[in-house]
């Protein structure tokens, strides 16, 4: 952390405390009430179990959340990540089926992701569209594009390489977990060992002042959206690998909401500015644990969003400075009386 030191990292630790506490509480709940939650077994040199599943699926959200963190930190938002994931998966599967080599298919999926992100970035920076509107365009259109690629069919493929992305394992852990670790490491190094992180936070905190200080605000935003597109593309490949097929209709469904939630739970404000990559990854895992817990408590998938929303509401409220102040006042008044 070359651009951070001392009390600054202490304050970012304080921001992480909340998602961390929520995570531990959920784990404790499961320890007490969900039998077999912590059971992990080794088969063929690979770990299996509920926790491992959570890590696996949480990684997909986590990767998108990392890209989303950068976009939100610039004061924007990207609603199109789910649709972009669908495009990337559809393109990769289509290329495999039409005889391309797996590396070409994978690279194409990722490049499409970057292009989609750059498109969003151009709409936001050059045409000055509001981020929510700019990315809504691709959110709606993207699924149509994915359908065009797949001709409206579910494309099943047979490629060990592409299948490995979602289902393989490395050192006992699912491959997506490894990818999340790599994406997190690269992004953290780029953000904190260069000035990118500083510039992103400046643009998000006060764009006019950043511009007056010479920060290339448009380039910074463009970079954030392109990175987010790349992450979405990667998530799309993981998803189409899980099911060994590209389903343009359902791939990446509601992924944007999970990713935005993860970022917010991780302590990055939707208004932009200071961001925490680790916080977003924690947030992603929190969401996945919550989802899994509800399933294991036999809450039906249709009802699950309601209790999920309740937990999210509590964590977000606890992030609110106004509410914290009131709680603090209340406590001190009690202590005084």
């Amino acid at each position: 952390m070359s651009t951070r030191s001392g009390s600054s990292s202490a304050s970012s630790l304080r921001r992480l405390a909340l998602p961390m506490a929520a995570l531990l509480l959920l784990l404790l709940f499961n320890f007490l009430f969900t039998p077999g939650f912590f059971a992990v077994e080794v088969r063929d040199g690979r770990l299996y179990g509920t926790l491992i599943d959570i890590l696996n699926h949480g990684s997909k959200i986590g990767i998108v959340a990392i890209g989303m963190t950068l976009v939100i930190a610039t004061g924007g938002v990207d609603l199109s990540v789910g649709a972009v994931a669908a495009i990337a998966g559809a393109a990769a599967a289509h290329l495999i089926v039409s005889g391309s080599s797996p590396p070409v298919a994978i690279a194409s999926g990722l490049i499409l992701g970057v292009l989609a992100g750059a498109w969003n970035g151009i709409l936001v920076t050059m045409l000055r569209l509001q981020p929510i509107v700019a990315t809504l365009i691709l959110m709606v259109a993207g699924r149509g594009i994915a359908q065009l690629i797949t001709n409206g069919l579910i494309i099943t493929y047979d490629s060990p390489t592409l299948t490995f992305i979602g289902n393989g394992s490395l050192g006992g852990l699912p491959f997506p977990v490894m990818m999340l670790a790599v994406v997190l490491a690269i992004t953290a190094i780029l953000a904190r060992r260069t000035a990118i992180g500083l510039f992103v936070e400046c643009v998000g905190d006060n764009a006019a002042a950043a511009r007056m200080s010479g920060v290339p605000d448009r380039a910074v935003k463009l970079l954030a959206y392109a990175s987010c597109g790349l992450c979405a593309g990667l998530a799309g490949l993981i998803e189409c690998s899980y099911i060994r097929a590209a389903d343009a209709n359902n791939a990446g469904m509601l992924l944007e909401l999970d990713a935005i939630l993860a970022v917010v739970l991780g302590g990055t404000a939707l208004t932009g500015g200071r961001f925490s990559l680790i916080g977003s990854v924690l947030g992603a895992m929190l969401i996945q644990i919550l989802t899994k817990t509800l399933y294991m408590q036999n809450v039906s998938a249709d009802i699950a969003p309601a209790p999920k929303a309740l937990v999210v509401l509590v964590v977000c409220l606890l992030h609110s400075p106004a509410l914290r102040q009131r709680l603090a006042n209340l406590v001190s008044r009690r202590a005084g009386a």
Partner: protein
Amino acid sequence: MGDQAPRAAHPTDSRMSADAPLLAVRGLQKRFGAVRALAGVDLTVLHGQIHVLLGENGAGKSTLIKCLGGVHWPDGGSVALEGRPIAPASPRDAERIGISTVFQEINLIPHMSLAENISLGREPTGPLGRIRWHEVRRRAEVALARLGLRVGVGSDLSSCSIAIRQLVAIARALDVSAKLLILDEPTSSLDRGEVAQLMGVMRRLRADGLGIIFITHFLDQVYEIADRITILRDGALVGEYDPASLPRTRLVSLMIGREYSPPIATPTPTPTLTTAPTTATTTTPSSTNGETAETVAEPSIAVAHARNLGRRGSVEGINIQIDKGQTVGLAGLLGSGRSETARLFFGADRATEGSLEIDGTPVRLRSPRQAIRRRIAMTAEDRRSEGIIPNLSVRENILLALQVHRGLARPIPSAEASRLVHDFVRSLNIKTPSSEAPVSSLSGGNQQKALLARWLATDPHLLILDEPTRGIDVGAKAEIERLIGTLRERGMAVLLVGSDLEEVVRICRRVIVLRDRRQVAELHGGRCNEREIMAAIAEHTPSHIAVGSTPQPPLAGDSGGSR
């Protein structure tokens, strides 16, 4: 205020006349926390009178009209309309009583038609609350016709020029039965032709018997249209005057609050100066050594040289040369184009006319980033919106511009960064609990010093300071002044925008004076004093520079009526 003789000389006779004045404000007071915004202000407006309200920043003009318009509630004093005491509780209430205000930022809806805007919020309704659109249109036509404006009331407001929007706002204000119309700087973004149109409307309304309170910063407009002038300063009444017997120079000195005596042939060194950190005002050639460099044979390259620099609709005719180690001031009233000029030197606004040379090379600055590459630095006038990055640390705020200068890929090594920040915090005496504290937690003066540190870290050749001492405490002011002196000795060129003339002449040995968005004078040596600056600000037809005294409307030419 004891020295302001003409105070309340005239309003008495108006009060003695048979009819009560349209508006009589007496001893109005308003506080915001510890700040006293209005300290017992009087204002008398008659029927059919255009009354200009004048004052610099913080004089209390806005607070006064907001009290009249029902936005603020006064803490003390009385307001009477046609002899009846009133206390408008809301803007709506004020309108009902007969006081309508058109604020500087026009509060209209761009994507609605003119007619809808005029009736917005008080649409005539039929049974079941159905809006009678026919009536809406008819009313709008009547209201606009009263202003002598013939445009389609069905067209979108966003398709109209600023001037038309301004007139629509007035029409909206007059749609209710207004007796008193308050116009807050309606001309600040209009070109000359549009101003003339607006003035025509004001005269028409005056003939109808309406009272108008007109706030403007353009002295030419004041003398063209005012029936009476009331001047405020620092929340207090300076006096009410008759424009016919108030010379411009006197008016300027009343606004600024410095006694003005007409310039004499042989200027003596300004005597009123207190212990200034620099001996900027001495007139002997030996002490103005910074200036002698100009006359010495050795040709030095100017750090910045603007020739006829301007920006359409903003400022024009700027000719400034700044050499190494010189501090040049930009003076003028609010709205004269001071900040606009400074921003052209930094690429914050793009120049559309003239040329600019930096260190001898012609440049076209299109962004602050390009200016920074040319070693130009600027602290903006509005510290909050264009200066600090509020939630980032003091450390990050200080390092930002240097980081930009070095580029994205070359982060400042941790040790160097710490040393730099530590050095600046100490040498500029920035009072902060730690360099990691968010900059927004510091006081205004310390924020300003952190911003100065941000730019000094880039080692600029030209430092532009737009009102660097506004809103900061006396101690920090003195420190910043001292700092500018040190920088000049080190050879830095400084362009200082200032509204406090005493401060400007104390710091600068050469002052450029702007009026009505153009350069009207350049004063140096013995002529660089408050008296001369005020004379230049007030002067009607400038003699130093060939600006045609006859109105030559290059701006009005391309706009005509509606754009």
